[in-house]
């Protein structure tokens, strides 16, 4: 089990990204960073200020950025390419497919402003299908860290493994739930709470809500298992199967459409020996403008809804 708890401490995941990038920049001169005119928002600009020769603001041209990153990678560079999730995936899907994933180049796409909690900008900027798009690509691995600490583990980890990765983060500050570094392994789930009544499998910052849901359920005498799944592809099948066997009822939670993301990955992982499962996420609809906290509530991405859903899925358990 890995220690995790909800504290008052909030930190932006993007700050974790920029601090990790700068550290990498000092350690490895082959690290280069590209952005598409959102370097202040993604916070890659901080790397650019320290390493101006290895930072390329490509302007508002994501397609060209992905191709440039691919070309740099063919020459031994570890290319981080960043933008908002909606532009870093959908806007240049074919460039990622043809120039990054197919030749399996060392490009790390790190996107920010994923999910509905983008808030006021509305549906055009609330990327809810990025993990589905990236999961579908051969050679692509998909990671959604839970907090800034985990981001600081994920970035050096993916830099040390050749080939393409997609990492998604939200815009909003998020509770720091991990107290220690070096607990992240690509493809490995993190067991955060033990329990055999129901399993809550979550990814990204939804894991903080899953931990709160555990407390709510505990008050009612229900022992929930909480599994954080930072790597959505390849998903930790062993841990999913074990949760299915031990609990017989699963809830998945993600700030993403219920189609093709974590819910899809978990369903697939246990498809040969399935148990009842309910997916919490955006239910095949676009988002809308609003305060992040209000939207999260409206679309059911809260501890309350996770706890309610957990009880629901327990009722249909065989």
């Amino acid at each position, binding site marked *: 089990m890995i220690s995790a708890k909800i504290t008052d401490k909030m930190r932006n995941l993007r700050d974790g990204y920029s601090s990790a990038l700068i550290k990498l920049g000092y350690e490895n001169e082959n690290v280069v960073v590209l952005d598409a005119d959102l370097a202040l928002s993604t916070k890659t600009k901080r790397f650019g200020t320290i390493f101006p020769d290895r930072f390329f603001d490509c302007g508002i041209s994501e*397609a*060209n950025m992905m191709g*440039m990153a691919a*070309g*740099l990678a*063919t020459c031994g560079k570890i*290319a981080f390419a960043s933008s908002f999730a909606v532009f870093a995936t959908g806007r240049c899907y074919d460039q990622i497919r043809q120039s990054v994933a197919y*030749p399996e180049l060392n490009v790390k796409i790190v996107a920010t402003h994923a999910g509905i909690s983008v808030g006021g900008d509305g549906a055009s900027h609330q990327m809810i299908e990025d993990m589905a798009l990236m999961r579908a690509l051969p050679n692509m691995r998909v990671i959604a860290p839970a907090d800034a600490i985990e981001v600081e583990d994920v970035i050096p980890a993916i830099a040390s493994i050749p080939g393409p990765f997609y990492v998604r983060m939200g815009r909003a500050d998020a509770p720091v739930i991990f107290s220690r570094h070096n607990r992240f392994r690509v493809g490995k789930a993190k067991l955060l709470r033990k329990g055999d009544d129901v399993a809550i499998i979550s990814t990204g910052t939804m894991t903080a809500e899953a931990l709160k849901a555990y407390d709510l359920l505990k008050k009612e005498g229900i022992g929930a298992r909480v599994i954080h799944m930072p790597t959505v592809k390849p998903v930790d099948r062993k841990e999913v199967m074990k949760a299915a066997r031990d609990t017989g009822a699963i809830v998945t939670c993600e700030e993403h459409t219920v189609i093709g993301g974590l819910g899809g990955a978990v369903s697939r992982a246990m498809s040969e020996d399935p148990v009842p499962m309910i997916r919490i996420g955006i239910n095949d609809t676009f988002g809308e403008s609003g305060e992040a906290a209000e939207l999260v509530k409206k679309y059911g991405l809260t501890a309350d809804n996770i706890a309610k859903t957990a009880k629901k899925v327990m009722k249909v358990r065989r």
Partner: protein
Amino acid sequence: MHDKELIKDLQRKALLIRKYVVDSVYRAGSGHPGGSLSIADILSCLYFHEMRHDPKNPKWPDRDRLVLSKGHACPALYAALAMSGYFPVEELKNLRKTGHFLQGHPCMKKVPGVDMSTGSLGQGLSAAIGMAIAGKLDKKDYRVFVIMGDGEMDEGQVWEAAASASHHSLDNLIAILDRNGLQIDGHTEEILNIEPIQWRWRAFGWDVIEVDGHNIEEILDAIHEADRNAKPTLIIAYTIKGKGVSFMEGSLSFHGKPPSKEQYIKAMSELNQAEEELND
């Protein structure tokens, strides 16, 4: 003035590339002969004279690179690579065949000597820019060549990349435009007008040189001039689609169609005859 023997040798090798193109596409039963034949002279100049490369060490970090952005013309690229010694020329007979490595569009993971996977048009220049920037970062003196088609000029990404290359003053980048005037659906000017193409590129901050894309001396001169430029250079190579095979020249239907058996025999006999004339 170039050495006459060199010119003749490069012409001979271009003819051989053409023969391999016709042969491999015929055997494959599919592929793109027209746009492959139009770049044979350019590839001959690059692989057999201009480019610094080592077929025994395909990933040599100091090599000149070539991105075939018009990836469908890979039968010509594969011929040039095989003739250079990257893999046996017998493999050309297995183009597009299940279980063999010569894919219908270039795959850098499978084919030694292919510097970038391409196939979806408009993407090669961006990758070439990344390679050129890496060369600058690593203080290496290699050059990056990219061959684009004129139909490809329709793609928006080409213009993102065009702006990016001049923004970064990539004097180690040489793009060659295979201006054969045809794309799948018709004449480029009828489908989507790209003229005045040289002024469009000049406006994006490039030096532009125009050559006859089937004239070895002009191609070599243009590359040498590009080497002296402080900006990225576009060489507009005016070519004939299907060049070297009478019934394929200027033909729309041979963009993506193999020759029939009779056409194959006729094409090979024309190319053989051209070879004999060259050797006279």
